């Protein structure tokens, strides 16, 4: 089932086009990474899904229904610019936002108790936000985002401000939520988290969607057909024209590490077979492009042809 469907969303501000006919689908129960350089239009898209601003044209459906104000109860939103009322106490703060999201006070209290228990924050109810450390406040804000049990979660750089320990804690919660069927739209610049968390990826650049699909598909699509081989004897790649030796460097233990690109589209096994005749192969591994590489490559506007 499709959790979020946008159909040719266009948003124009006075001087510039923020979104240009952006269509995308987010499958229910997946984590979808929303990527793009600064100013690409990610925030505008997120704000439109949150109904903070209206698109000039285009349709949005949430769980198969046209987006409408009542849907705020289904959506949880953690904006990149975090913010809480500084003078308010932790409990009041959480209650207020939860009620605005449509929860009853009783339910909200129950949930707050659950999360306080789980995150070991029992004594925090009466503390003022201004007295908390940045990381603590971030935790509170994260709880506030998921307290009303949203079915669709929008997280904008959720790990910024967290130490590795807390980041792990939050990651676990996110994965738990996913397991329970929550759909997550995940906007970030950290490519390593995209690789470890996201099932699908949407890339936006200059107001346009330039790429989407599952992470595996995309990495497959951007294969460079390059293998990294560790071996003992030097390589002489023959016949030329079939393979290209990109680099060969001696490493410790008398080994050599080489990178070889397959030029004629033949299978890796062919390459391995050729190599075995020439040298003792210690390891053989296909080089899979990182999401960061793909990102840079696409955003720089270079062709789809791999450079390496």
């Amino acid at each position, binding site marked *: 089932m499709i959790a979020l469907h946008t159909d040719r969303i266009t948003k124009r501000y*006075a001087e510039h086009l923020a979104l240009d006919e952006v269509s995308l689908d987010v499958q229910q129960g997946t984590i979808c990474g929303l990527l793009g350089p600064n100013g690409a239009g990610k925030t505008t898209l997120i*704000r439109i899904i*949150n*109904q*903070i*601003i*209206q698109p000039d044209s285009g349709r949005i459906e949430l769980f198969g229904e046209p987006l409408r*104000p009542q849907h*705020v109860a289904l*959506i949880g*939103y953690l*904006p990149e*610019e*975090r*913010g*809480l*009322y*500084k003078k*308010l106490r932790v409990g*009041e703060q959480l209650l*207020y*936002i939860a*009620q*605005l*999201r449509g929860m009853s006070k009783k339910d909200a209290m129950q949930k707050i108790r659950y999360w306080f228990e789980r995150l070991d924050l029992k004594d925090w109810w009466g503390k003022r936000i201004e007295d908390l450390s940045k990381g603590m406040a971030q935790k509170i804000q994260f709880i*506030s985002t998921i307290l009303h049990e949203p079915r669709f979660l929008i997280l904008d750089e959720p790990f910024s401000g967290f130490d590795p320990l807390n980041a792990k804690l939050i990651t676990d919660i996110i994965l738990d939520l996913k397991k329970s069927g929550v759909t997550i739209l995940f906007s970030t610049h950290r490519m390593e988290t995209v690789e470890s968390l996201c099932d699908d990826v949407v890339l936006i650049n200059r107001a346009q969607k330039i790429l989407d699909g599952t992470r595996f598909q995309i990495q497959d699509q951007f294969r460079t057909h390059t293998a990294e081989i560790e071996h003992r004897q030097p390589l002489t790649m023959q016949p030329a024209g079939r393979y290209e030796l990109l680099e060969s460097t001696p490493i410790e233990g008398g080994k050599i590490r080489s990178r070889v690109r397959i030029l004629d589209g033949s299978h890796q096994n062919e390459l391995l077979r050729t190599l075995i005749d020439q040298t003792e192969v210690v390891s053989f591994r296909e080089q899979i492009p990182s999401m960061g590489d793909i990102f840079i490559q696409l955003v720089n506007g270079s062709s789809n042809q791999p450079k390496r």
Partner: protein
Amino acid sequence: MNKVWIIIRQEFLNRVQKRTFLIATILVPLIFPAIIGGMFYLMMEEEKASGPSSVFVLDESGKIQLKSNEQIQFTALTGTLEEAKQVYKASESEGLLYVPDFKEENPEGFQLYTEKNLGIEKTGELRNLLSEQIRDIKLRSLQIDPAVLESSKKKVELEVIKILEDGEEERSNNGILNAVGMVMGILIYMMVFLYGAQIMHGVIEEKSSKVIEVLVSTVRPFQLMLGKIIGIASVGLLQFLIWIVLIVSLSSMVTDYFGVASVKPAQIQTMAPGASALADAGENGLKNEDAVKLIQDFENLPVVSLTVVFLFYFLGGYLMYGALFAAVGSSVDSVQEAQQFQFPVTVPLFIGYLGLFTFILRDPHSSISFWLSIIPFTSPVAMVGRVAFGVPAWELGLSMLLLVGGFLGMTWVAGRIYRVGILMTGTKVNWRTLYKWATMKL
């Protein structure tokens, strides 16, 4: 609507539960009278302590006989003006009054020499004494008996009686009407400012702390603005309610006190017909009679309708300016930045405030007073200043209607600026951008 209610409750409780609210609510009705009373007391003490100013008089005409009183002590000098000046400079005296040999038909050339200014009150007193002298001289030259003269100086009490529309008559005390109008006008002016600023600070806090992004993803900006404005308004109303209760109970205590006191002389008169007692009672009775009259005048005030009108104009004025304050708060990033707009926004209210003193309290039925109390920008202050004097029903109705229209329109415009402004940070805001935001589609 449910969400607006949640916001109203939050804003209301958040403010009312603070200790500062309790302190302000209880202290303000005590502090203001205390300050005014204290200043009066100091003034009296100052006057007592300073005693009469001594003033030398050089009378070249020989016609002036100035009697020393508790304000000014006169000492006659002789000789030339230059000599008198020397004497004055050598002395501790505060002034030298020079009276030339003037003609009665054209008294000119009076001069007062001082080293430090004598103060407006004493200079005025001096002027009065001189005018009186000259009038006396003139009247005497017309051969009028001094006794007749003395008896002609009678003070006249003018009782103002208002004929009501139903033909009934009612004594009205212009002094009290003035005071009531002034106090209500000032209160509204201050309160609109105070609570308006609270709205603005609240909006700026939400914007600068970035809570706003989460808030507007749950409610429409207009609901948020409305909830905040109404929430703070209910804080204001609660505060007023407490003040009214405090003031009414305090003044009924005062009334009781005077009510009891005013019975006593009458009892004394009938019970003790002794001469001295009678005189005593007479004097006391007169004083008490004044007090009773004053209280009656207060009781004659249409308290209920005044309160209703006051609350209406407080709410109306507050809602209108509150929306403006919210718009200002939404368009800036900090309180400092807000100042450039805060002043222009409140200028119309300030005009109403100035008009209250310069026009309305002096002549509540002049055409300027009329317009000030009709135009919604100034009417909250102007109309409450006027209403105690009696305003035709249609004027009141028109003014209220326009005020309602005014704040509806203002809230609409402010809402349009607000919904853009709260999401814009780091924008250089001027009047043109505000206009652009108000007309922009989102």
